[in-house]
């Protein structure tokens, strides 16, 4: 039985989504406890899988009992297991934190909200855990469709933004499918490891190059990499709070994981970095993404839109860091995936907590928040320091790796962009801090209480836990890199399976 524990990661949330739907039509009070128990069980399974991978090596789980490549199989190594723990943690923290907000925003469809939530989590975990290229497309579509629905429920602007996201996301996923079709024509197989063993024997290099470009463009569209990022600011800033704090930390990071997996496991580092000659173009695009994203974030006057542009900048960090091509850069990118998911979660939970007390988003309504909501703003400060890259928060360590990777690879423009954007981030966040700390409280709000009016406890405790995790991740960054990330990256680079 214990060899079946990896299966629980996917099976339990899926079954819970179905049960929540069937039971939710009869008794609404059962939905939330079922969902939380399912996510907790999945979280425990991811921890067990990580321990097993560190002790015994990669886990290969054969679905339906067939060996790959005849059947679909999961291939869990250190990288997979780390991202799975990340997803489970974010989902669990978020579902607890947004319980009251979700009950407020969707009173008559709460059961279906939790079903879509669980299906989204199943989709992203399935993307990370699978070892089959077509299976990845199907799970990508589950995550995308539930994402479109969750993001589209926020009012009229949300529907338009979500429809735009749907169009661009469908083009991206279909381009990925098209690239997979090219791979299938060339190799005849759909299993990642199998394709990787067949590709070096082919003489038809241009076919493989075109398939790589197609897959890459599709993935760039889904991860909001410049210049295909235009869907992201609208979709995330107009979305309802509970959905935004689930989808924003996860979608783009999981797509980055897919890019790492496709480039290093299927196409192998030698082909992806040297033969393709794409490195310079992608690193320059990353530099433009970082600089333009930072400048556009500075021009915003609403909190959630500023956070959305910061996500675009962070994607630029991670994609550029990966395409530097050396192990330090890839280590930095992977560490930044972990850190950035937690930082984005913290920031969006803060935005949700502020929105639960003040119904407005623009900066001018945030005056005096430090006095009214001290704990929320402390968490915001910790997340801000982490994004800027101040030790001992986790953001410092991943930026350190990215900077050294940039210097090592000779891409000084990337290093310069990192430093400039850190400075712009200082300006961005201290502007928010200044508005919320120093200005006197405006009397145009209905509530004129002078005391502390914090967000409710079930929203505040997960938020503080996330902020605490940012500091803990910073302290343990070195052990995280040594024990988990470096074995993952070195095995991806040497091609040992």
């Amino acid at each position, binding site marked *: 039985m214990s060899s079946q524990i990896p299966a629980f990661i996917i099976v339990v949330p899926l079954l819970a989504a179905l049960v929540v739907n069937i039971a939710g039509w009869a008794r609404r009070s059962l939905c939330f406890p079922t969902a939380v128990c399912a996510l907790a069980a999945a979280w425990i399974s991811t921890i067990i899988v990580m321990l097993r991978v560190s002790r015994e090596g990669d886990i290969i789980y054969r679905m339906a009992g067939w060996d790959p*490549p*005849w059947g679909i199989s999961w291939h869990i190594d250190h990288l997979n297991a780390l991202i799975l723990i990340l997803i489970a943690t974010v989902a669990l923290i978020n579902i607890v934190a947004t319980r009251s907000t979700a009950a407020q925003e969707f009173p008559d469809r709460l059961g279906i909200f939790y079903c879509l939530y669980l299906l989204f989590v199943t989709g992203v975990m399935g993307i990370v855990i699978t070892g089959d290229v077509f299976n990845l497309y*199907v799970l990508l*579509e589950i995550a995308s*469709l539930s994402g479109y629905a969750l993001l589209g429920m926020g009012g009229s602007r949300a529907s338009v933004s979500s429809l735009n996201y749907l169009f661009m996301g469908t083009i991206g996923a279909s381009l990925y499918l098209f690239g997979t079709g090219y791979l299938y024509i060339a*190799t*005849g197989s759909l299993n990642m490891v199998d394709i990787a063993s067949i590709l070096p024997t082919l003489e*038809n290099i241009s*076919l493989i190059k075109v398939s790589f470009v197609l897959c890459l463009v599709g993935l760039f569209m889904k991860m909001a990499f410049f210049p295909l990022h235009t869907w992201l600011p609208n979709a995330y800033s107009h979305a309802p709070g509970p959905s935004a704090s689930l989808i924003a930390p996860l979608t783009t990071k999981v797509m980055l994981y897919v890019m790492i997996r496709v480039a290093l496991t299927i196409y192998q580092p030698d082909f992806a970095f040297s033969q393709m000659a794409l490195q310079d173009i992608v690193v320059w695009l990353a530099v433009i993404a970082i600089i333009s994203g930072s400048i556009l974030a500075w021009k915003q006057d609403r909190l959630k839109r500023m956070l959305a542009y910061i996500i675009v900048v962070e994607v630029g960090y991670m994609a550029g860091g990966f395409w530097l091509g050396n192990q330090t850069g890839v280590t930095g990118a992977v560490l930044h995936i972990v850190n950035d998911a937690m930082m984005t979660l913290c920031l969006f939970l803060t935005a949700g907590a502020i929105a639960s007390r003040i119904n407005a988003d623009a900066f001018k309504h945030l005056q005096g928040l430090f006095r009214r909501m001290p704990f929320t703003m402390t968490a915001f400060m910790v997340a801000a320091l982490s994004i800027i890259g101040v030790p001992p928060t986790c953001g410092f360590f991943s930026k350190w790796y990215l900077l050294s990777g940039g210097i090592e690879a000779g891409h000084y423009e990337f290093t310069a962009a990192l430093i400039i954007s850190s400075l712009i981030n200082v300006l961005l966040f201290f502007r928010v801090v200044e508005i919320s700390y120093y200005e006197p409280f405006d009397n145009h709000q209905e509530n004129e209480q002078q005391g502390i009016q914090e967000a409710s406890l079930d929203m505040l405790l997960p938020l503080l836990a996330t902020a605490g995790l940012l500091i803990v991740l910073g302290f343990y960054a070195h052990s995280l890199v040594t024990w988990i990330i470096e074995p993952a990256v070195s095995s991806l680079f040497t091609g040992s399976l």
Partner: protein
Amino acid sequence: MKSFGLACVVLLCAALIYSTMNFPDWGSLNSPASEHVSDYYIQNALEETAVPNLVTAVLADYRGYDTLFETTVILTAGFACFFLLRRYRRKPPPYRLYRHIETGVTLIIEQGGKEPTESEEFMRIDSQWVPYDLVIQKAARLVIPFLQLFALYVIFHGHHSPGGGFQGGVILGATLILLAIANDLRSTTKRISERISAQLASTGVLVYAGTGALCLLLGANFLDYSALSRLIATDPVMARSHGILLVEIGVAIAVSAVMIWIYYNLVSAGRHDEGL
């Protein structure tokens, strides 16, 4: 903007057509896609799963994990349409239309007026009034049972002929949509309410995932139907065939229920009051 988009698209198509020069010829027997994995399926699927229809065998057994998530995708679409569109009407509509059947007179009852009960004398009609057509209603009523029988045939005979759960489920859902189009939305909502269709949709996927989980509990990997041979008392190969049938039934239930659920939500814009 349009010309820029046109230029980009033309360039992309030209680049892709250039890249197809390296593809294997259409229909060639020794392209890599026709060897390796697909040869294994053609040669071994019949003896390993006892299902002659190779597509069903690969879909529901070798790549059954994929098909589970495909069914979940269509269920997600059902959830999404409900989540986005459903509006529970808090106030009644400004007017309702009723028809006196014997004389054919149409009554417009405004809000606050006394509405006749639906009976042999009065019939409620949609505000986008379509003429009462005897031929369509009676013809649909005659044809629907045969269509449903055909749908059941497609589901259950999917092992030996083209067909299977998705195809049969869609035909089944289409029969209910035909009923809704030929009559009006309320006639179908009375027979199969939204709650039933939503629960049936999840039950269908639960049958599929539950079969896989049952195999987990019996000690084999997820969706490994040969583990069912302990329960059904046959050899592992026939157990695979029966497992495939079981999941195809689950798929058919889910797909037909989701088709009708999405139709309810889309066609009435969430109100479930009046529709096509």
